[in-house]
């Protein structure tokens, strides 16, 4: 049979990853692994019931501005580490008893539930979930009873939180996985996800509402996908276990039961091994794109349809292939087996003003059909909007079996560092030691009353090469979350205009801020500069 002269090599034909001709070369960040000297010594341990999960959280629990870390331990106890570093220094942490050291923890997310200005912690577990009230000084206590939180008894693997309009107390969504007692025939045994809404107007939770149908959630995110002012709940589900399931988007309206968007509403049926959600307004049109991790090809979803009509219907098209982020197989070595992706996060690791994408990779367990050595991805966004793999060049291409992860500025030098939680091996931590990165600023948001950290707000920054918009969320990723400083790369801009669209839709004033600085923006007040120490 005659054949094309051109050999279509699978991997070579995949993605136009290189920046377009004439574009400036991408700045590859330089990460230095400091696991051995960091003081971090955590393993996500356990067998079948811990094949998912393995989260890590970053939050500041002693008001020093530095992010402290909490790791899920699986069948071992969770471990808390106080950040003992100094600005710009090597990364250094000290293990410290915090009250958070529960066993059977799969995931962990920080948020200020009771609005007292002290970070609280959600612990997802195999068994009873626990909300932990922050006491200050990095001490925490169980608050299930005090807050009326029913932790249930499930295999919990996903979490998201929002403050519904007018609420004085948050709404928490918990995603649950398989019925772990169905060991001989677990398929089709997805257990109900739970919605913990406030009890009337009280500062406590009502009995949880089952979000039926549930399809084995591995990531959830409250997100205002159409900028309606009201976040809806996206859920990424693992098709390995559901029957009749798909990815989900629940419509939320205050005081009403959530309702699924359907095909009649424009929602397109998508069935993947959904494991993690990351969002960012990549194309700067004001609406977030969503990256969904899976096995083999990953998805990058953008609203489709005619301009002006898009926000009426949650119809998404997959632009992963065109954007170069399918990340479907290892980019190192000669393995042809597909990848397994978990946590994902968009953030600007080289401060060029464009969100980059980190993906934690790792085989489920010992699945021979999938790559055993599966390096994490660090995909740098070019000016044209496509992405280029730089995990190996940047020094973060670990082939440990990764699960949760975080990009966060751990030493307050303006560069995002990296933490990755691994299954069956030690967590790893890298310091971003780039010397040619762009300028930056970092912001904390504060408002009075409930929802002090302004979850649901949009932070808008006009730098170079243009406007960046960040939705302030709690949830998503894979079992991992953070609070504290929100980072923006500015390119070469020495100043940036910044404003906040607060959760109730009120737009703050544009403020011109100096680059390479930290700011606290309290609602209705001028931004206040902050310096470590």
């Amino acid at each position, binding site marked *: *049979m*005659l*054949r*094309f002269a*051109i*050999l*279509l*090599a*699978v*991997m070579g*034909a*995949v*993605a136009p990853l290189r920046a377009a001709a004439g574009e400036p070369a991408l700045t590859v960040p330089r990460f230095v692994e400091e696991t051995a000297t960091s003081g971090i010594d955590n393993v996500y341990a356990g067998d*079948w019931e811990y*094949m998912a999960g393995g989260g890590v959280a970053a939050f500041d629990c002693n008001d020093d501005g530095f992010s402290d870390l909490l790791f899920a331990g699986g069948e071992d106890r969770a471990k808390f580490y106080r950040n003992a570093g100094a600005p710009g220094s090597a990364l250094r942490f000290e293990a410290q008893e915090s009250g958070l050291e529960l066993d059977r923890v799969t995931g962990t997310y920080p948020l200020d539930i009771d609005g007292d200005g002290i970070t609280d912690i959600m612990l997802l577990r195999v068994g009873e979930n626990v909300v932990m009230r922050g006491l200050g000084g990095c001490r925490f206590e169980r608050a299930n009873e005090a807050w009326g939180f029913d932790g249930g008894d499930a295999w919990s693997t996903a979490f998201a939180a929002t403050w519904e309009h007018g609420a004085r107390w948050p709404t928490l969504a918990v995603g649950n996985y*398989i019925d772990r007692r*169905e*060991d*001989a*025939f*677990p*398929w*089709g*045994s997805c257990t109900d996800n739970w919605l913990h809404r406030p009890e009337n107007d009280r500062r406590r939770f009502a009995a949880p509402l089952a979000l039926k149908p549930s399809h084995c959630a591995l990531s959830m995110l409250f997100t205002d996908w159409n900028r309606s002012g009201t976040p809806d709940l996206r859920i990424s589900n693992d*098709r*390995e*276990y559901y*029957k*009749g399931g798909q990815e989900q988007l629940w419509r939320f309206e205050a005081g009403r039961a959530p309702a699924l968007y359907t095909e009649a509403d424009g929602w397109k049926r998508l*069935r993947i091994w959904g494991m993690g959600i990351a969002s960012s307004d990549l194309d700067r049109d004001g609406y977030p794109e969503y990256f969904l991790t899976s*096995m*083999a*090809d990953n998805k990058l979803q953008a609203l489709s349809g005619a301009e002006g009509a898009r926000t009426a219907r949650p119809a998404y098209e*997959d632009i*992963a*292939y*065109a954007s170069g982020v*399918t990340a*479907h*197989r290892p980019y190192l070595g000669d393995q*042809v*087996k*597909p990848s397994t992706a978990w946590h994902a996060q968009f953030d600007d690791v080289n401060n060029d003003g464009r969100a980059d994408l980190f993906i934690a990779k790792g085989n*489920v*367990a*010992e*699945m*021979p*059909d*999938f790559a055993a050595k599966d390096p994490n991805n660090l995909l740098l966004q070019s000016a044209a909007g496509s992405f280029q793999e730089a995990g190996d060049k940047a020094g973060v291409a670990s082939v440990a079996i990764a699960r949760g992860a975080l990009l966060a500025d751990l030493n307050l030098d303006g560069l995002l560092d990296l933490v990755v939680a691994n299954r069956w091996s030690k967590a790893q931590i890298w310091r971003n030691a780039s010397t040619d990165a762009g300028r930056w600023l970092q912001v904390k948001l504060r408002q009075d009353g409930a929802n002090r950290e302004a979850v649901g707000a949009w932070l808008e920054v006009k730098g170079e090469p243009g406007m960046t918009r960040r939705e302030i969320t709690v949830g998503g990723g894979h079992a991992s979350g953070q609070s504290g400083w929100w980072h923006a790369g500015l390119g070469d801009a020495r100043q940036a205009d910044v404003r906040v669209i607060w959760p109730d839709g009120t737009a703050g004033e544009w403020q011109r801020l100096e680059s390479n600085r930290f700011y606290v923006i309290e609602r209705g007040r001028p931004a206040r500069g902050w310096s470590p120490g």
Partner: protein
Amino acid sequence: MKAFRAGVAALLIAVSALCGAGSAMAGDLGDARAQHVVRNWYRLMLELVRHTPTYSPPVASRSFAYVGVTAFEAVAGGSAQLQSLAGQLNGLAPAPQRPAGAHDDAVLLNAALTQVMENLFANTGPTGQRAMTAFGERLSAGAAAGVPDDVVARSRTHGAALARHILDWSEADGGAVVENMGFPAAYELTPGPAHWVPTSRIAQQQTPLLPQWGENRTLVMPDGAACPLPAPPDYSEEPGSAFYDEAREVYDTVNSLTDEQRAVARFWSDDPMLSPTPPGHWLSIALQVLEQSEADLERDVDVLARVGVALSDSFIACWNAKYAFDLVRPVTYIRRVIDPQFEPPLITPPFPEYPSGHSTQSAAAASVLTDLFGADVAFEDATHAEDGLAPRSYASFREAAQEAGISRLYGGIHFRAAVERGLDQGRCVGRYVNALRTRN
């Protein structure tokens, strides 16, 4: 608990209850225990197919054949009614004879099926491995309860020997090793607009699935080319040409789908990783009809082996033809020639169009089931009930196969010629299988 899961639980309980009734090495009670072993493993197999990434439809059909032959030979070795398939299936030598002394079919079958399943599904994930272990242990304990120790030991030993015999035979057929879920690292596209090009934006699927599968050793057909097809209509973009008209039919049908047609398309969609696959759908039909007809053990293994062989050979025949003609998919042609915005309702499979695999294997399975049960056996198909798709009823296996075939046109993934010639090809495969002698 949902229907299918309830069914499995009930079967496991039934095994225990039967075993608790006392020793039964032969007779109706022993047959019933053995039958429960077979049906439980089949139900687990249909689930593992769905959850093992290597298991595209051709790969699934292969395993269905080898598991079916294993069960058949295990029972035939102790049956005066059944005739071994050795010498009838390509390359299958006579199985080891049962040693002297009593054997228990349930124990023997469970030992053989456990070993074959663990081999064929060695690549399944941790949950599948855990399930196989749990199933094996429970079935093993249930099957052996009340059976004398020496009979249990003898039966297990022979079951293991039989499994090894089947596995040794299977490993040289060309389909034992599947890399990267069946997508080759490199592939040369056939030049010209008539030929297949990738249809998705999935990076892994930029080469077609299992291009060498049509060269595998067949089971009962002489080889993969034994059921040849006429060429599809000549490629043309000229309105009024046969090829254009076929594409236009797909386009017009998709754009005016009735609710019934849409339901048909979805019912037979049988997507890999989201269902038991098309061959699994027909195996599910066979299991449902066996239950409906209150079949005994020998009938079970006869039907399951024949259907498995038919499914496996039909995929080899179909793949042989697919890569010989290497025809473009409707979505490619229609977007190029008729409407760039065309969206087929079903996911277009990542391999050439002609003939329709679902049509070939449906007609093959239907031919075999018709031969075994009759031309006018009505049945209800609840394969996808747990996935929320209502059962559908058919007056005959042929009717179901015809519907499976045309569903691919409704789904926008096949032209009519691929459906009709695929059904023809399947009937050809079925004739080979129906010529097997399984009864003395």
